[in-house]
């Protein structure tokens, strides 16, 4: 069948600058560039280009520019280029359209409609370069009250505290499974987490034995497919996270195609080489809050109650009620992943249409747990499109204890958000299991870039906190008086629990 799909991008090469070094040919994993010996010229197959910028960055003479194809269908706000292309693609294949990364639609970002406060005259701001600023965060249930006793002149804590996770900054690396990302990415995340004093999350694909030594800085995930879930795995992590859902694809399962299940992936997931790794949509031992309670406690039993067990859900319409159930079921921390949450592969229709913005989910969950008097019984971690320190400060002021970053961490390593992770051919060596392409991520350099990012954002968070006259992240948490909205309706302001700017 002749394909009616037109190239999305056009590769332009300045022939004056091109020295025929063939770097672009070697760097492109989509076979876009080729050498034409007859004319001694490098040419490109535009239809293969995904706009990943790998060749642009690596071309020694900066000869390449990638342009969006300006040949468009007749302008139509309803029948957009994206819609028409999707229909053509499906008419040719009969399949579900896959995509990678998070929802890319313009609506749904509330962070940009929330502004932060700063101290002026009446209460002084704090200079973070001069004063100590506390970002250290403890994740896990806090007691209703503390009982202290005086013993021989010393104050002794009588209350038994629940296991806590301690992170030096309220930024954790989000669940990205080995298989969705390459080993070097996992290694870099683990090293960066260990170096900075935070945590990475294995995602649902198990943990390679070579990373067990970073266990104190790793949250191990248990998902419906139970891939790689063994006693050793559960015991090695600092915490366990039960994955119910993820923001990019709420309500549906995961699916690592057989061709990505290489020898190493097979070892970690504990399934045979080349078989599909299908994660069912639900955990088949969880059909209710009571069942969730049962799995949480099965995991606590299996690991002797020495580490927190959390639960991750996608942010959906009734998140607040579900979250209340999760806390009552014994979740030591809960993770809310918003509509912008990323993925290695998801049906595009689900990614772009299912779930709710994390800002609204967070505000309503925090509010609900406060109203029920159980907010202290859990910690809230939010994720789904956190782009920078301002998003983090706003999230914490809205009620989060910490955030997970996934996409941002990958961008630090090299990702350009081409959204083609599902092909397994990530030219940046990130979303691939191909041993040759994976080598493009140098774990030392990647870890350094990640640590730099954590450091930069942590400094910015301190600056913003200082400006508000706050010297400890504890005092920022749930401190919605530091937030104001612009361009929001009364209902939106009410759900966010913040005032309009000027009020």
């Amino acid at each position, binding site marked *: 069948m002749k394909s009616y799909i037109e190239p999305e991008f056009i590769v332009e090469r300045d022939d004056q600058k091109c020295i025929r070094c063939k770097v672009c040919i070697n760097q492109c994993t989509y076979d876009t560039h080729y050498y034409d010996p007859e004319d001694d010229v490098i040419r490109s197959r535009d239809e293969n280009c995904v706009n990943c910028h790998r060749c642009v960055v690596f071309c020694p003479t900066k000869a390449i520019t990638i342009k969006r194809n300006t040949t468009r269908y007749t302008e139509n706000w309803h029948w957009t280029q994206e819609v028409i292309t999707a229909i053509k693609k499906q008419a*040719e294949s009969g399949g579900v359209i896959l995509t990678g990364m998070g929802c890319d639609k313009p609506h749904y970002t509330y962070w940009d409609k929330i502004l932060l406060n700063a101290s002026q005259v009446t209460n002084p701001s704090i200079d973070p370069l001069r004063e100590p600023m506390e970002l250290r965060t403890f994740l896990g249930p806090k007691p209703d009250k503390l009982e202290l006793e005086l013993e021989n002149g010393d104050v002794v804590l009588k209350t038994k505290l629940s296991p806590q996770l301690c992170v030096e900054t309220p930024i954790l690396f989000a669940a990205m499974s080995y298989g969705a990302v390459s080993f070097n990415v996992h290694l870099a995340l683990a090293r960066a987490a260990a170096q900075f004093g935070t945590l990475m999350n294995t995602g649902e694909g198990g943990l390679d034995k070579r990373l067990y030594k970073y266990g104190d800085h790793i949250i191990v995930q248990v998902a419906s497919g139970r891939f790689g879930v063994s006693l050793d795995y559960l015991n090695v992590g600092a915490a366990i996270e039960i994955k119910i859902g993820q923001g990019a694809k709420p309500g549906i399962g995961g699916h690592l195609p057989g061709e990505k299940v290489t020898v190493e992936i097979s070892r970690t997931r504990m399934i045979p080489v080349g078989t599909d790794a299908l994660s069912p949509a639900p955990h088949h031992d969880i059909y209710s809050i009571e069942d969730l309670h049962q799995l949480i406690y099965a995991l606590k039993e299996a690991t002797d109650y020495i580490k927190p067990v959390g639960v991750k859900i996608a942010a959906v319409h009734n998140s607040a009620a579900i979250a209340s159930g999760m806390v009552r079921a014994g979740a030591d921390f809960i993770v809310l992943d918003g509509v912008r949450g990323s993925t290695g592969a998801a049906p595009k229709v689900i990614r772009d249409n299912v779930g709710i913005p994390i800002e609204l989910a967070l505000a309503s969950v925090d509010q609900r747990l406060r109203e029920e008097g159980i907010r202290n019984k859990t910690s809230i971690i939010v994720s789904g499109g956190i782009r920078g320190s301002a998003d983090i400060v706003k999230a914490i002021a809205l009620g989060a204890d910490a955030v997970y970053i996934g996409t941002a961490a990958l961008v630090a390593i090299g990702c350009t958000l081409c959204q083609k992770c599902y092909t397994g051919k990530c030219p940046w060596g990130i979303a691939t299991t191909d041993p040759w392409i994976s080598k493009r991520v140098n774990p030392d350099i990647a870890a350094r870039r990640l640590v730099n990012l954590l450091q930069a954002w942590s400094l910015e968070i301190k600056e913003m906190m200082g400006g508000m006259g706050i010297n400890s992240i504890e005092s920022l948490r749930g401190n919605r008086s530091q937030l104001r909205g612009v361009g929001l309706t009364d209902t939106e302001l009410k759900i966010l629990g913040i005032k309009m700017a000027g009020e």
Partner: protein
Amino acid sequence: MKPSKRLEQDSIRDDVAIINAEGMHYRDLNFLIKSNSNSVRRIDIYNVDGQRYIGTGLKSNIELHLYGTPGNDLAAFMDGPTIYVHGDAQDGVGNTMNNGKVVVYGRAGDIVGYSMRGGKIFIRDDAGYRVGIHMKEYGNQKPILVIGGTVQDFLGEYMAGGILVVLGLTLKDRETCKAKFVGTGMHGGIIYFRGQLSHTGKEVKVTEIEKDDVAVLRPIIEEFCNHFNLDVDTIPLKEFKKLIPHSTRPYGKLYAY
């Protein structure tokens, strides 16, 4: 900090310990089992009454004999022990179990062997819904799950490996098993089924058993019969059918790239 609570010395004789579980909270019971799982060969537990998680997360070679009815998630994430249940079991027997053996002298509830990756489970009588769901295998770990009686819907759903056997011994006069959606989404492993099935998922096909199957099936049936004192000849191998997936990639063509 690993838990540790010694058993009372007078409860141990010849390497076999005895626990009276009457009125005991599961946490205390399991704590006691776990703390002693490497110091005695066997523990007999009496008056088991719904305590959950017995054997959960237990890594040892101990033998447990349970008298009564253990609660849900018996032997979850278990790695090595052998558990005999002298009574019925409830839901989630062998959930994500890695290795070991569970023998139930009675019936079991739902999701027996969910996601189990190794070891063996023998249930003498019936079991509930979603039995053997997402069973898998890896390397030389090939889980074996045998149900002596009949089962409910979704048997072997999403099954990715291992061997699941249903003997139908509790069905009268060659009655047809009523389970629906047997093997839905199955993409690995084998289900051996004795008698008639009323409904199977579209991802599986039913075939006759062959020579290779006999070699696999015979020792499993023998082991089952040994445990429950049954005569092997009452379960002739020729009465079995085999369910296998059409493809190891049932959803390979679902997507447009």
